């Protein structure tokens, strides 16, 4: 991984001047550009605005200001078109306890208007990849967290999205499940899909991401490949953790940080 983003790549996501305020600014005039076929990791301390940013991109929150363009589609004025090529997966897998994984995927395929036959082939593939075959026709109510996250991931992929937005997808997963999820995501990127993911596990960002964005107090304070981030700190550091701690420790020159 860690290939620099060539200028001739199609642009998957453009965010300009994105702002959201709750009782204080959560996201503050954020700019972001992510290229097609790129794995982008968004890291930052707790409360930095990572999840708020991704929820706005996924259409779950209305921004106070700014624009979001997904594969050339204005996501704020044409949300349905933007959602058609997007998938969202949060850290808390939200699935229906009384449906089976097979039925859940059928439901998702219906929501995304996917041809039933094609969706079924894709669903069976995903169920196989994610090791859910023995449980495909069991209700999800007895599933472990890892299994639920796999079902939710299958739901996010069944409609073959161009842009996959993930908020801490590896939280609470065992090593085997985490490896499986990571492999599925890397496979998607290899196939031309784009992944943007928040994570607290810096090692994951370090190993998987083409580029890493560091966000603090609602603003992007640094962005680039791992090597570029290392250079930005001006120190001879060896891990992303050191780089991250150095970057977020520096004061951010904007009013929100001053609060």
């Amino acid at each position, binding site marked *: 991984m860690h290939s620099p983003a060539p200028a001739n790549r199609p642009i998957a996501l453009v965010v300009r001047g994105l702002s959201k305020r709750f009782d204080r600014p959560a996201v503050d005039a954020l700019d972001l550009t992510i290229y097609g076929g790129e794995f982008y990791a968004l890291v930052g301390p707790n409360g930095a605005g990572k999840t708020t940013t991704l929820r706005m991109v996924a259409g779950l929150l209305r921004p106070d200001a700014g624009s979001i363009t997904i594969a050339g589609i204005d996501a704020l004025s044409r949300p349905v078109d933007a*959602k058609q090529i997007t998938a969202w997966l949060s850290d808390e897998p939200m699935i229906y306890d*009384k449906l089976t994984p097979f039925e859940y995927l059928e439901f998702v395929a219906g929501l995304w*208007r996917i041809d039933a*036959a094609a969706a079924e082939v894709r669903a069976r593939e995903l169920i196989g990849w994610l090791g859910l075959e023995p449980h495909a026709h*069991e209700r999800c109510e007895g599933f472990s967290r890892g299994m639920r996250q796999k079902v939710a991931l299958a739901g996010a992929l069944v409609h073959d999205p161009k842009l996959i937005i993930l908020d801490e997808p590896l939280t609470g997963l065992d090593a085997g499940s985490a490896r499986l999820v990571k492999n599925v995501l890397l496979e998607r990127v290899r196939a031309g899909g784009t992944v943007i993911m928040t994570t607290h596990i810096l090692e994951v960002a370090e190993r998987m991401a083409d580029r890493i964005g560091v966000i603090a107090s609602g603003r992007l304070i640094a962005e680039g490949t791992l090597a570029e981030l290392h250079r930005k700190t001006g120190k001879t550091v060896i891990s992303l953790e050191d780089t991250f701690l150095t970057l977020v420790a520096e004061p951010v020159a904007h009013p929100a940080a001053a609060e």
Partner: protein
Amino acid sequence: MSRPDTLAWFAGHEFRLGWRDWVALMTAGRRSRARTVAVALILFAAFMHVFAYWIVARYADADLASDTATLVGITGTLVLSWSLLLSQAMESVTRAFYARSDLDLILSSPVSARKVFAVRMGRIAGAAVMIAVLLAAPFINVLAFEGGMHWFGAYAVILAMGATATAIAVALTVALFRTIGAKRTRFVAQIVAAVIGAAFVIGLQIGAIQYYGTLSRFALLESDTMVALAPGIDSIVWWPARAMLGDGLALAATISVGLLALATSIAAFSPRFADHAIAASGVSVGVTRQVRWSQRFRKLSPRRALRAKEFTLLRRDPWLLSQSLMQMLYLLPPALMLWHSFGEGSGPLVLMVPILVMASGQLSGGLAWLAISGEDAPDLVATAPVAAGEIIRAKVEAVMTCIAVVFVPFVLAIALTSMICAVVAAAGIVIAAASATQIQLWFRAQARRSQFRRRHTASRIATFAEAFSSITWAATAALAAAGSSVAVVTGLAGLGILAGTRLLRPPGR
């Protein structure tokens, strides 16, 4: 402060949790509302006392114990109330076994599970008594004020009723646990609780329909036949009724029996509490294989997918079904009456129309909450490429389809006797359902389906608006079916309630 691991210490802990739970229930979790809620409760209590005065003040001085007919009436009312207490206690006991909350902490600690269960049984009895006392207090206070202090004995009778109801609820639930296992008990106990709660009143109504052609539950209790079949005036069957009327000996006996039953139940069943709770905890990790007629994906549009999902979730959730069953059970007497009065003209049907309309409003409110607010995967639905209006339409269609499935047979049966009544009933059912659904749309909030029981706490306005709307449309339908022009007035009142509710809806809805 009492020493930890004693009954008193656990009781203090449970009381604190119970009190905070109740305050949260009343204030919907917002402490700033506490003063408003307190004022509202005082005003409500004052109103209830005035209402009670209007209803019972005339009986305060009557020599009520002198005849069997009076004892039959009071005993019937007590049994009716007791069956509701038993139903509520049974549901609470089931929840005490299955709700995990703090049980993992308690059961993994070195404290005695027997003591915990003993206190929790006491709390269940206390909660049952408290609700009954709150409902009955205005009537008892008015009777005592007008007729003398002996009426206060009624409070003790309620205490005894709550204690026996809890004792029997525990025995029944544990018996279910031991006979059909932990997995089935949760479902069966809830159904049994719903049936018990409705059975006595429905039984009285069915008897009244069969013998007297009326839906009034008191027709049977007040009948000469019932008085003739009743035991003699000295029978112990009448002790609770006599206790209500101030007979000291009967009062002492009634309280003793109640408390003894509760103490026996606690002593007999609390030692096995931990075993049952652990067995119940295993239920949630059980596997349910789902066999479907087709293992192929169906061609689904977003709206059809959403509707199908709602139907499937409702069908597969026994707890929600049991909650709805309670309302469906009350449709049994009208169904029987319909069958009984077939060919006798439209007179008896007029009585049925408001019951159907009321049931439609209540059922729609619950279903609409489940479909609109009780969405377990809100992010999935919100990120789907479907317009928000289309999602709402699909969910409303799901609610209306359920309502149609339940009520169309009734309307068709009414149409065989009176087309006018059928048209009025159909219109009333649709309007009541649409009103309740609209109110849920205005006051929708993100929640999980498992919070269905607490849906009323999210918005008091929505709860009262839904109830008043259903009542008003039921009254309108009854008046219209009877050919009264006053229906126009109540219909306008119904519209007024909706308009007022719309004004009070949260911003942006």
